[in-house]
């Protein structure tokens, strides 16, 4: 039925709204189970285990308590857990996806591994990065950004960071805390420190 009909366009986005938690990120607080957690870690995953944490703020600098963040990334060898990545098999059970809702103070965190190098469309290496999607009440469509790592020399030659004005690159760079495998990155949906979001 209707299989031969070509759609006249895609389904438009609508906001995730204020009430998604019991369905998408219940984390034990509602009578529903989580399909995803804020961790990509699996027993067989190889690579440097890191935590990425920060807060989300609106244009007034007020913490956003009802955002949902999702990450998607390669494994430590730069391979994606998706058959569309034809290069090599990733870690057997590593999925590379995680989801986190912000808490009442706008905090989020992800436990993951630092991804490896992934080529750009011309075959040039991209610095290790994680793709981040941001959803929230007041956001009619989710926004895409990236997380880079402050201690990666490859950032200087990264072809996507090169598209970003130098003074805004810090909004994409998670900063390593001294002596700990923890990186901090705050997100600003609007304002002087506004996070760089990509049109993709």
């Amino acid at each position, binding site marked *: 039925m*209707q*299989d*031969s009909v070509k*759609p*006249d*366009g*895609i*389904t*438009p986005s*609508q*906001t*995730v*709204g204020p*009430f*998604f*938690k*019991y*369905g998408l990120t*219940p984390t034990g607080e*509602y*009578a*529903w189970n989580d*399909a995803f957690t804020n961790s990509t870690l699996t027993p067989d995953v190889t690579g440097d285990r890191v935590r990425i944490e920060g807060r989300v703020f*609106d*244009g007034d600098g007020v913490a*956003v308590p009802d955002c949902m963040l999702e990450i*998607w990334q390669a494994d430590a060898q730069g391979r*994606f*857990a*998706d*058959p*569309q*990545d034809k290069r090599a098999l990733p870690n057997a059970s590593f*999925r590379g*996806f995680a989801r986190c809702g912000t808490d009442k103070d706008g905090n989020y965190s992800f436990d993951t591994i630092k991804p490896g190098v992934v*080529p*750009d*469309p011309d075959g040039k290496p991209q610095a290790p990065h994680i*793709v981040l*999607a941001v*959803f929230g*009440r*007041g*956001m*009619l*469509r*989710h*926004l*895409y950004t990236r997380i880079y790592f402050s201690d990666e020399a490859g950032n200087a030659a990264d072809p*996507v960071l090169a*598209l970003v004005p130098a003074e805004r690159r810090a909004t994409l760079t998670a900063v390593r805390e001294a002596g700990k495998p923890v990186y901090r990155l705050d997100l600003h*949906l*609007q*304002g002087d420190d*506004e*996070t*760089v979001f*990509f*049109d*993709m």
Partner: protein
Amino acid sequence: MTFIYPVDSNKAHPLPLSPDYKSSIKRAPNKPLIPMRHTLSELTGPVYGHETVREGDNDLTTQHSGEPIGERIIVHGHVRDEDGRGVPNSLVEIWQANSCGRYVHVRDQHPAPLDPNFTGAGRTVSDAAGYYRFVTIKPGAYPWGNHHNAWRPAHIHLSVFGHSFVTRLVTQMYFPADPLFPFDPIFNSVPDEKARARMVSSFDLENTQPEWALCYRFDIVLRGKNATPMENH
């Protein structure tokens, strides 16, 4: 099959800033989004299949000891790409208010009753043809604080994955001919009338089950076209 994801297709989406929807004013970026080419990081996406979904997760009327109050409905359709092909094995998550328009979420405190037999969350995975199906209760309209006498049209929230991270979609499915449409700034944040119509389900008498449940059809169209040489230009 290799897919391409023309950025032009995104014109169907609302603009981030839609001032009639007050919550968008401080949460929409002021600076222009930076265009970038899709790399492997964007062209791949999470693959979650049936192991993510438990038996019965697509029936929101059987999650508790008793039956929920309200009008039982079937919501079904296909997840499709822009060429109309079914998108198989795509996770579809839904959440919604109960028949009185009340969400189980602790922050929804409007004076309508909770239903002890209804949580309002479900998930399923599209089959090989892209087909998905839920059984649920028709959600009620509910008031919100956006403006004087603001009411949301009845809707079901949907979250869909698709072939890549750029096909990720969160949307809302509405019901046919809702009298609240002209007054809802979220529905009307989509500028194009034809695109708004793609968020409205259609009544499906053929698949309505006698003596049991009305049926609504809702096709979900995600980004993605076949990357044939013809279409690459």
